[in-house]
């Protein structure tokens, strides 16, 4: 098996403020796969991205991207990777086309040479190619940023929270685009705080406080969920959560949308239902459900 990203014991500590941003990070990304880095804000995702894109030096450990060391071979690496930072960072006072042209030239290539890779994305913003990048909508900005990161046909693409602050429809569209890019042979590392996007990846790493909790394909992570998961719903969700947590056999409980997800240490779920009815929730409904990635993540975090 070939790997396009190999991360070996990477650690990074910041002095001001004193934060252990990354602690012994290890993972590999298979060539041509879509790998997701899932974690809340401040988990260390961006720091890891900056180390892998040669913008930041790690304190310990080493990493290779497309077989090249991120420290020693940073010069060669910079023409092999594409990076889309979390913050929109193109020239707002240049037009769509001028931005694309500029980044193509910086990589010593032309729009035409890389057009096949971006045509599905760029076609959607091409009608606005003379508009200043600063005047584009959020979704269009993101498409332009992706086009600019891809124009030099990188082997590995790094996307740091590409869908943060983007509407649900555009997010879906965006993930379809990623699938197409992957199918053209580009290895993709994407980070996201959205759990629903995790299942769209070939493999995911759950990251929290600079540590990786679990690495596996999403289906494996879900299959590894050890308990039976119940969903409890009722009319007074606030009081219901309080009463559920008072039940003696509760292993975990947390609100999940308008329901409560519950696992038990032992005993029967009927006992919980009885008690809840006694406590004044006659309408309570309890179902057994298949856990989602979010359930797995919350379990791992505890």
């Amino acid at each position, binding site marked *: 098996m070939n790997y396009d990203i190999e991360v070996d014991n990477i650690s990074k500590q910041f002095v001001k403020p004193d934060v252990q941003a990354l602690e012994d990070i290890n993972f590999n990304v298979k060539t041509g796969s879509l790998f997701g880095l899932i974690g809340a804000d401040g988990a260390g995702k961006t720091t890891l991205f900056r180390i892998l*894109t*040669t*913008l*930041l*030096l790690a304190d310990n450990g080493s990493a290779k991207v497309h077989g090249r060391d991120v420290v020693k071979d*940073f*010069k060669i690496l*910079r*023409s092999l*990777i594409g*990076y889309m*930072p979390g*913050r*929109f*960072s*193109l*020239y*707002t*006072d*240049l037009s769509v086309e*001028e931005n694309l*042209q*500029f*980044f193509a*030239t*910086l*990589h*010593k290539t032309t729009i035409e040479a890389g057009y096949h890779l971006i045509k599905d994305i760029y076609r959607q913003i091409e009608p606005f190619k003379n508009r200043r990048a600063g005047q584009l909508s959020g979704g269009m900005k993101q498409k332009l940023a992706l086009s*600019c990161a891809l124009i030099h046909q990188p082997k590995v693409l790094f996307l740091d929270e590409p869908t943060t602050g983007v509407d649900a429809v555009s997010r879906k569209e965006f993930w379809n685009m990623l699938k197409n890019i992957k199918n053209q042979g580009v290895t993709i590392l994407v980070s996201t705080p959205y759990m629903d996007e995790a299942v769209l990846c070939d493999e995911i790493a759950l990251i929290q406080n600079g540590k990786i909790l679990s690495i596996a394909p999403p289906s494996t992570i879900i299959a590894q969920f050890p308990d039976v998961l119940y969903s409890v719903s009722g009319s007074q969700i606030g009081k219901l959560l309080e009463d559920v947590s008072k039940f003696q056999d509760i292993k975990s409980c947390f609100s999940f949308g308008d329901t409560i997800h519950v696992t038990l240490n032992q005993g029967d779920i009927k006992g919980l239902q009885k008690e809840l009815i006694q406590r004044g929730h006659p309408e309570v409904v309890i179902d057994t459900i298949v856990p989602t990635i979010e359930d797995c993540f919350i379990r791992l975090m505890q």
Partner: protein
Amino acid sequence: MRVLLALLKKEFRQIRRNRVLAMMIVMLPVIQLTILPLAADYELKHIKLGIIDDDHSTLSQELTNKIMSSGYFNLVDVGQSYTQGLEQIERDKVDLLLEIPSQFSQNLHKKGTESLSISANAINGVKANVGSVYLTQILQSYNVEMLHKLIPETMYANSGAILTSSRYLFNDNLKYPPFMVPGILALLVTMIGGYMSSLNVVKEKEMGTIEQINVSPIKKYQFILGKLIPFLIIGFVVFSIGLFIVARGVYGIVPRGSYLLIYSYLFIYLIAILGFGLLLSSFAETQQQSMSITFFFMMIFILMSGLFTPIQSMPEWAQWIAAFNPVTYFIKVMRMVVLKGSTFMDIRRYYLIMVAFGIVLNTLAIWRYKKTID
């Protein structure tokens, strides 16, 4: 080369689209260079003079008329006594008091000597100083006239009095614009070079665009050149507008020395100043910080450059600061070449100093600009 061209194209597009900036580049030299030399005029006029004439003779009247005809003074009524006159000084109604004693005319005729008293309000030191000098000069020339009148020609010839007459070299009428314009022009170029280059780089940091530049395979020197060249060109444009349109068109100042010398010095100077701007930008994360840091240095550079006050009259420590101020040398060279027509041999020392500034500042700037951000 193609990469560098793309960087330059991008830079000029951004400047052109930034209306305020584009306006500043054209209007700054025209407006500032037209207004500032007129305002920064050390020639004092309208000095408020009170004359206490205790003599009331034709002679004292003659003296008063002579003083007033000089055009420097406005006569203010201060009453009849010296004490009254001092009160007027306290109220800031008068800058200068001249007291003509009661026996003035008589004593002058009898004894051949008499003394006058001048009192000056030294709240404004320049006004007091310059005003008394003007007044003393007028009195001296009146003195000579009196000698002619009172003493027979033959005796006068033997009296051995020393007469001084001055001639102002390189600026015949001691006009201020020829003195100020080259200096202010030097300052304008400094402001543009220092502020614009540092703000520009910091803006890339603030907008996050530098991240995208950093992950691309662009070389360090390409990035630096991409930032230096546009402002080098803008500096030349601003300087030329100032030199040809304002200095020549408005003030009729034509450099006596060679244009090649002026422009070659400008070139080296701009590289040094732009290097300084780039160096400062590496210490700032936001444009606001960059403005504050640059402002701090610009104030020192401007006030300690010898533009307004001669460096020779500064205390020794201040002279040392001025010696490490690149603006000092550019102003000096500008004045020498424009007013005096100095040649390369005259300014070669300043040439070498500026080359040294350029090398040191740019080396530091390149060293500070790291592609891998820590």
